């Protein structure tokens, strides 16, 4: 009888039910989209965020913890280990060389500014976009303009081959009161027995990075090597590599490379994990230690985490507003069917029997709305995927039950208030048309 009633009343008030289902469907579509996005956004964002910095740092094996205070390297220059600049081409010669987007060497020398009482400042030598000889004879230009795309220069970039063009960090420029086009003199205090090297540089532009370079002078590597007397030496290399997200295997490799079986090692070695690329760089470059820059990865994690919280909030808001919409529609249904409910009560129906009828309708509305919403949302998330990331999002089966369950829950939540009007409804009040 119950099933008969459900079936027979299915098309009663179908406009209202369709509206309720559409309300649920809209929320379900939004939830589907956000769910698809939040599952995929990790991978997508990681790829996007490669644009915001290098992810492997290569230093000499013996490099101890850098002694940096306020961005100035206080490690004594003498007795330090360096990498050979000539070795850098080998980084472009590893198994995953095509994944190496760029690299930039660094040599950081403490200097004083002539005629200014500015204390010690870093003079950083690097490649801006320098042509690097490759074994394959291809033209390969690389430097911070590729590995550090967020570095912003007001003015011009220095010429990599020049010995006198430099960028000055914006904080330092403000402190010294200098601008692009000005000339500054630097002196390098030599450790131990006296004497000092001096140089005069022309500022081609003001550099803004938001990091330590804002307080430094950045010059072509050759110029700094000459000043420091460290020809052909670099302290560290930043490498930008396209990598795939870490998985169980790569985490195992990071914990203990020796724990991998031969076949696991092969798979790991031939996959573009940041850890395996770092490993290959270590193999290729003499005396090098290559480490993934986990801060970048961690930073990605924080951003993605925040995005997911935001999505959750939006989802909850969609859920709540859909529940409210369903609630008002269901309330209308209860009003419209007040006589029917009054009659059922007069016939001695138990409270739950009447509620069951309306809750079943809510569940049907939830399921129908959920399915429609899921289909619409899947389409929408593909559209968003293409619009935002320029690629499609993977289809996640898990979203199907989740979205339908959430839709049913929405419809049921929307039925709470109407259910209370059912309870409050007195048959005497509706059966005599008062």
């Amino acid at each position, binding site marked *: *009888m*119950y099933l*008969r*009633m459900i079936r*027979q*009343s299915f*098309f*009663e008030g179908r406009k209202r039910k369709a509206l309720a289902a559409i309300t649920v469907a809209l929320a379900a579509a939004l939830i589907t989209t956000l769910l698809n996005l939040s599952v995929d956004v990790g991978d997508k964002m990681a790829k996007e965020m490669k644009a915001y910095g290098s992810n492997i740092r290569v230093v000499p094996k013996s490099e101890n913890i850098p002694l940096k205070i306020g961005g100035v390297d206080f490690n004594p220059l003498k007795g330090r280990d360096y990498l050979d600049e000539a070795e850098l081409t080998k980084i472009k010669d590893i198994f995953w060389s095509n994944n190496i987007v760029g690299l930039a060497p660094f040599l950081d020398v403490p200097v004083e500014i002539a005629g200014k009482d500015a204390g010690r400042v870093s003079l950083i030598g690097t490649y801006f976009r320098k042509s690097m000889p490759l074994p394959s004879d291809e033209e390969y230009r690389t430097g911070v303009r590729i590995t550090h795309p967020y570095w912003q220069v007001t003015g011009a970039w220095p010429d990599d081959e020049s010995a006198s063009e430099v960028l000055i960090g914006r904080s330092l420029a403000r402190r010294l009161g200098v601008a692009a086009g000005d000339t500054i003199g630097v002196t390098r205090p030599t450790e131990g027995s006296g004497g000092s090297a001096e140089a005069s540089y022309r500022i081609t532009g003001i550099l803004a990075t938001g990091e330590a370079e804002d307080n430094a002078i950045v010059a072509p590597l050759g110029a700094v090597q000459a000043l420091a007397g460290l020809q052909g030496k670099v302290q560290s290399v930043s490498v930008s590599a396209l990598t795939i997200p870490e998985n169980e295997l790569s985490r195992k490799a990071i914990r203990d490379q020796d724990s991998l079986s031969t076949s696991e090692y092969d798979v790991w070695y031939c996959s573009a994990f940041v850890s395996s690329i770092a490993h290959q760089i270590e193999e290729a470059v003499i005396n090098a230690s290559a480490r993934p820059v986990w801060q970048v990865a961690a930073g990605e994690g924080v951003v993605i985490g925040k995005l997911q919280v935001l999505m959750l909030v939006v989802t909850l808001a969609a859920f709540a507003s859909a529940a409210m919409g369903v609630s008002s529609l269901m309330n209308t249904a209860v009003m419209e069917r007040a*006589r*029917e409910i*009054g*009659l*059922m*009560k*007069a*016939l*001695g*129906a*138990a*409270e739950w*029997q009447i509620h069951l009828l309306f809750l079943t309708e809510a569940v049907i509305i939830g399921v129908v709305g959920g399915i429609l919403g899921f289909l619409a949302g899947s389409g929408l998330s593909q559209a968003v995927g293409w619009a935002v990331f320029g690629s499609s999002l993977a289809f996640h089966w898990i979203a199907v039950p989740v979205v339908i369950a959430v839709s049913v829950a929405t419809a049921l939540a929307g039925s709470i208030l109407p259910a209370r009007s059912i309870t409050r409804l*007195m*048959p*005497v009040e509706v*059966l*005599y*048309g008062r």
Partner: protein
Amino acid sequence: MDKRIDFDTAAMFASDYSRTSKPVIETDGLTKQFGTVAALDDVDICIREGEFVAIMGPSGSGKTTLLNILSCLDTPSAGTYRLDGLDVSTLTEPERAVIRREKIGLVFQQFHLIPYLTALENVMLAQHYHSVADADEAMEILQSVGLSARASHLPSQLSGGEQQRVCIARALVNEPAIILADEPTGNLDEENEKLIIELLQRLHEDGRTIALVTHNPEMGALADRTIRLRHGKLDG
């Protein structure tokens, strides 16, 4: 005219029968207050098994109010009401719902059939809430009110008189202790009214206990006796 005489004989017979049977409805000092209006004021009535009682009185005299309390749809402000030996005046709503489905058959002026259920299903609904829906039994009841040919029609496809007969069938199907009807012919034309009157008369002959609110003196005359209300009090 023959019919009138028949009715009177039957009424007399039933009237004699009722004096010896047990009371189904007994009220004592029944009072219903709506704010300052006393819709019912100290009403004592007794309806015995097999009796056919008409409740009459001018508009606003409290007939519907009385019937609602007798149907366990409403509760008295004061006084007691015993139905089939059980004091129901102090029961909670869920308990009254149980009493309604076990003991009461309701016939409404406005029929109150569920629009999306067929005649048969409307009868079965009462069975469903009472115990188990039984299509054969429901069909038998429909047959007894002369509607077997209309069993699969929706209320909108039935005439007023037919709808009222479905309503009566629904009231009968669970064998209630009493059938309570509030102006069952109020919405019907004369011809259909006659059919309903005949039907109620037959039910009475079958030994059913019936309380009927009516403005129609002709209908009132069919009953074993008449309870008259005026301003919420028993009149005479």
